[in-house]
């Protein structure tokens, strides 16, 4: 723990990453207590105060129906983070299992699993997600499904490559000679040695999942109104540029802060866990 703190403090970028993600996650969790307008996350309409530029008490201005933009943004963070975490909780175990099996079990298993992975990887991610969302109803759950489907192959390829290297290690041979099951060798012997790389990628990816989910909702294929979402906020505001600039700039900055923050945090993780070698 002391070592972790020392490594993070040694790099100013890591400190910035920790602070940004602290702000994003903190505001998402404590949203109800931070904002004076918690009801503005929903279908509140206040035509006496619509489309106002940043000022007081609406520090980021108000949207087209008079809702506080700052409130909308921190609730959008909450949705984005939940979406990102759920996507990774689904995609990572799936990708990791496929990668371990492809890397450790025989050549036939490898052929089937890795060719499947490559098929998914070869489709441009946004196109894949868009076609899934085009078929399904645009809801939060379906959005998560769509992003998950395009995300697991990256983990299967990462873990596949790690497993190919680990299976040559003596401890795998030792476990085989002892007669341990293949399940034990894959999940108890090999997997823990892949954790640092997986955790680093997960941190980096949380930002990218939020970005992709925002892109989907920017195109109208993600979370639907009145649920606050950064992508759809940018899309709505884009029509009123440049006069009502705050409608797009603040949600856009919010996406930037989250993605940038998770990237810096991912780099910090890499240093702490020693994954960079």
């Amino acid at each position, binding site marked *: 723990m002391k070592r972790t703190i020392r490594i993070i403090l040694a790099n100013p970028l890591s400190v910035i990453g920790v602070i940004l993600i602290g702000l994003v996650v903190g505001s998402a969790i404590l949203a109800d207590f931070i904002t004076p307008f918690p009801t503005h996350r929903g279908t509140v309409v206040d035509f006496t105060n619509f489309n106002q530029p940043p000022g007081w008490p609406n520090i980021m201005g108000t949207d087209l129906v008079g809702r506080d933009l700052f409130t909308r943004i921190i609730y959008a963070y909450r949705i984005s983070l939940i979406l990102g975490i759920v996507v990774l909780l689904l995609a990572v175990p799936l990708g990791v299992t496929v990668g371990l099996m492809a890397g450790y079990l025989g050549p036939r298993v490898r052929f089937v699993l890795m060719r499947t992975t490559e098929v998914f990887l070869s489709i441009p991610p946004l196109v894949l997600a868009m076609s899934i969302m085009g078929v399904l109803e645009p809801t939060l759950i379906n959005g998560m499904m769509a992003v998950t489907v395009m995300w697991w192959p990256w983990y299967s390829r990462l873990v596949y490559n790690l497993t190919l290297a680990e299976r040559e*290690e*003596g401890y795998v*041979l*030792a476990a085989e000679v*002892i*007669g*341990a099951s293949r399940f034990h060798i894959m999940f108890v012997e090999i997997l*823990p040695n892949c954790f640092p790389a997986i955790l680093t990628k997960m941190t980096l990816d949380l930002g990218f999942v939020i970005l992709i989910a925002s892109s989907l909702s920017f195109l109208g294929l993600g979370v639907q109104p009145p649920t606050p979402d950064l992508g759809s906020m940018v899309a709505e505001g884009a029509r009123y540029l440049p006069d009502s600039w705050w409608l797009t700039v603040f949600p856009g900055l919010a996406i930037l802060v989250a993605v940038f923050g998770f990237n810096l945090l991912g780099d910090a993780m890499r240093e702490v866990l020693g994954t960079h070698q």
Partner: protein
Amino acid sequence: MTAPLLAINQLAKTFHLESYQIHAVRDFTVDIWQGECLAIVGESGSGKSTVANMILGVYPPTSGQISFKGEPLGARRTKSQRRALQLVQQNPFSSINPSRRIGATLKLPLNVHDIGTKGERMARVEELLGEVGLPADYAARAPSTLSGGQCQRVAIARALASQPEMVVLDEPTSALDVLVQARVLILLNELRKKRDLTYVFITHDLAVVRNMADRVAVMKDGQLVELKPTHEIFDNPEHDYTRRLISASPVITEEERDMRNRLREGLAMEAVQ
């Protein structure tokens, strides 16, 4: 006469690579008797480790047969066959999983072969650590906190955990420095006597062979060129290759040998204490 513990009969292994084949082992026949230490020597690529891997069932032979206590060993080993044949590898840092505690590493063979009740296994792990000269509290340690020699002791303890009858030692000391080597060899000799083990000692270090082995099998290009009791191999090497192998190993004078033996006795005393 009784049957050998392990009978290797006309063993051969061919690896098929994309454009060519490698005959790693050809027509290798040897009987290994209960309680002996058979050294397999030869230069790199002579097929020593391939023989070891086939004995352990890592991969099946291309042709030929290995029998353990008169029963042929198939491609899929039974639990009791796996339990009886164990391995100590060359690189102790690679053979111990860096992300598991020493205790977990030593418990694996106990769990796989269902040795003792679950409650007894931790005590058994501590016993094993004691047997290889390590303190019992090492069970809670991470491998990264151990030296090469200590890791190799853990690897030996793991090999012994399943109470094997035969241990294949695949260059167990060549990654260690000289003093540590001597200690590990002393330990291996003690354990062999105490547990009545049979060793297959794979090495290219003839000084080690002289100290450990009862018989020596010399391999070259995948074939057995000479098989004799240790003193005969050194006194009267028949095959030209054996002669070259012996002449290539560092010569020690009688005085040097005496001094080394005195040092080793000292170390043995240390190890006992």
